[in-house]
């Protein structure tokens, strides 16, 4: 609605209310507490439970046409079938937008909301929005796929969460594009795109520095990310009898690079047979890594990934060397791609019964 239209003296035709369908767990739908967590998918026409509060925030602009619920335990135990059933129930209400939650700090409920929103978007082609605490694990699981409004960690945050949810639901229901996360009040998707700024980078940097020096507010253009913290497993007391594999990030390949592993921006990994190989010799192996001076590594590729040392330990009966060398190039690699490569290699190692891994990094 534009400000000009309100002053030109004409009556505005009230728009048809946006059709909103809600997804809630058993508790917020008013079915019952933890004892009712096993209840299967069901629905109530109109607004029920927490959806009544949402309806008040929507006013005349939107109408909660149906409330679909499912017990947290039920959904967690059979997510695929339960989410499919919930999605079918939501589809019955022919919604313009689906609102799931708020889930606050609840991990199970948060994941349920994320799964329902993703399914609604992907299968029904209907926009969806949910709300939860930024530390809810579902935020990371669905980042970039589902719009999430931040809330407090407990239901005490309901009065703050609902107006924001209602505003975004109406915008999504009308098919309007969302403004950036900061302006619109949802969590950043983690996706970035390029655009033209109104001034060159150097001018923006000096401006930002001067504001910082004067104690004036400034906004970074690149907020710092939050990385996963992976707690290392406790150290092995011995490798006796263990099957140990070698994984190289340094681009070690058989000479000639038969799989054409790239020197940078790798999106693949390769696996090479070590049967009968006691030593990575310069005539049989090389590195294709393009991010460091490879002269020394090419003289003795064992220094990138120590096949010779593990064979020596194997000869002493200290371990068994898994007969495959895993190799990729980390140079310029994207975190998302590397995370996928790591998971793929780990799955392959686990399937082969490998119990310990030496990772050579450059």
């Amino acid at each position, binding site marked *: 609605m534009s400000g000009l239209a309100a002053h030109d003296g004409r009556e505005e035709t009230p728009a048809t209310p946006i059709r909103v369908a809600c997804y809630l767990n058993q508790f917020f739908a008013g079915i019952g507490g933890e004892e009712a967590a096993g209840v299967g998918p069901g629905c109530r026409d109109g607004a029920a439970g927490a959806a009544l509060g949402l309806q008040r925030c929507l006013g005349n602009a939107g109408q909660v046409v149906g409330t679909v619920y499912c017990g947290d335990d039920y959904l967690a135990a059979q997510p695929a079938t339960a989410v499919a059933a919930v999605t079918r129930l939501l589809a019955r209400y022919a919604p313009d937008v689906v609102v799931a939650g708020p889930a606050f700090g609840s991990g199970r409920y948060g994941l349920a909301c994320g799964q329902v929103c993703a399914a609604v978007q992907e299968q029904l082609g209907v926009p969806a929005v949910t709300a939860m605490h930024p530390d809810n694990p579902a935020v990371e699981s669905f*980042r*970039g796929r589902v719009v999430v409004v931040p809330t407090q960690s407990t239901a005490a945050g309901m009065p703050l969460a609902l107006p924001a949810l209602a505003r975004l639901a109406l915008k999504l229901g009308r098919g309007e594009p*969302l403004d*950036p*996360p900061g302006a619109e009040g949802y969590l*950043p*998707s*983690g*996706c*970035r*795109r*390029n*655009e*033209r*700024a*109104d*001034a*060159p*980078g*150097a*001018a*923006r*940097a*000096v401006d*930002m*520095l*001067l504001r*910082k*020096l*004067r104690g004036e507010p*400034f906004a*970074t*253009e*690149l*907020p*710092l*990310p939050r*990385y996963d913290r992976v707690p290392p497993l406790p150290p092995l007391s011995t490798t006796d009898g263990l099957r140990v594999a070698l994984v190289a990030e340094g681009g070690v390949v058989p000479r000639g690079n038969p799989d054409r592993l*790239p*020197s*940078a921006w790798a999106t693949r990994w390769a696996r090479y047979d070590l049967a009968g190989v006691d030593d990575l010799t310069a005539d049989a192996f090389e590195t294709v890594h*393009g*991010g*460091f*001076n*490879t*002269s020394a590594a*090419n003289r003795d590729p064992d220094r990138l990934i120590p096949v010779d040392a593990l064979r020596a330990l194997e000869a002493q009966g200290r371990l068994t060397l898994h007969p495959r060398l895993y190799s990729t190039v980390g*140079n*310029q690699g*994207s*975190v*998302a*791609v590397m995370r996928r490569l790591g998971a793929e290699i780990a799955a392959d190692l686990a399937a082969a019964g490998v119990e310990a891994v030496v990772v050579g990094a450059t």
Partner: protein
Amino acid sequence: MSRPAGAVRPGARPVTLELATFTVDEVVVGNTDCYRDGRLEVDARALRALVRDVSDAFEDVAVNVVRPGDDARIIHAIDVVEPRARLAEPGSDFPGLLGRQATVGSGRTHRLGGLVVTTAGEPAPGEPTYWREAVVDASGPGAIYSPLSSLTHLVVTLKPDPRAFPDHDPAESLDVFQGTAAAIAYNRAARIAGLRVATYLAALTRDQQPDAVACYELSPVASRRDLPRVVYLFQMTCPYFYGQLWPREGSVGGTAPPPTLIHPNEVLDGALVNAYAMIACIRDCTYFLQTHAVIEELYRRHGTELDFRGVVIYTNGDSIASKGRIVNHAVSLAHLLGAEGAVLNYQGGGNPEVDVMLACQQLEARGIRTALLLPELGGGQGDSPFIHFVPEADAIVSLGSYEQTVQLGPVARVVGGARLLEGDEDASGPLQLSLRYLLGATIPYGQHVLRGVEY
């Protein structure tokens, strides 16, 4: 020791650089060399002879003009140079590469405005190619991504003579970024060829009146102004510094020298020259060094909004020890200059970001506020734009993500080559390319208006 009241202390003369602009409105390839009233005529045969004279390794040289708006694309770009000539005695152009050793940054330098000399051509045998491709589109959707698209390019396409490149001896240590010794020599000659053409053209303005003169002098700011003292920590890729390669640690060319101070005028006046073909979108083309945007911006506000105290140049380390040695010293120099604030750039790649973040952390710990210029890595969903970061890095300007894919339209004319180095695609397009191949798209010195935003 006392001195009589009113006596003038014999001080050093100020360093003043006058950049005299001669705008080029029209370029014509003809039979004579002449600049007059905005019209530049060049004799392609004379230019080719000038280039062939630099090295026997050039088998062939071609000269083409690409104007903004042309239905044209430059590929295999090597370096881009703004034509400059230091005509006043004792002038020396690009000392160490063209002219004899002399300090640049003072006196009058002639520049051609709106025109650049762009060297291009296929890589030399023995030169690594995966970082080498560099594209400039003169029109179409690709043109918005490069600050170079709005310039007229005099493209000098060089063809290496295969006979100048003996087979690589496997026993010889291979520089992973620059390749064999013969390839390194060829690429140095390619830079000199571009500089020679650029200097030759700018010298055609001798004895003529410029359209404008910009004056650069780091005059002392009166203490009563109480302006914040700002320095620039200039992380370099590995340029020629007065003709000598300034290496990065471990990778290109050996040991990184300790950081040092440089007068900003020297940067603007040819002390630094591009040395190798880094990723195109972040490549430190000589043009970007000659028109360094952070230095220009700090000068623009010197004496009114801030007190520009100087430039610290450094490259990156490749180990905790070498990073410490380099970063600690760069921060000490900033502190010694009395800095209260510092602008830092990150030149792209993996290792260099760690150094910039360490410098940011140490500066902030010493009470020196920082703002960072960062090209973004990562392009995928949920992909972090950082290699490394510190919590102190709370004021960052994004120069855009260089992993994003852009669509380039078809063009009628391709200059510099015919097929892209990677993928061997027909360069006339249409092309789907990573932004990293577009020359200058995320130039770390902030010349361009691109930025990344989260959505």
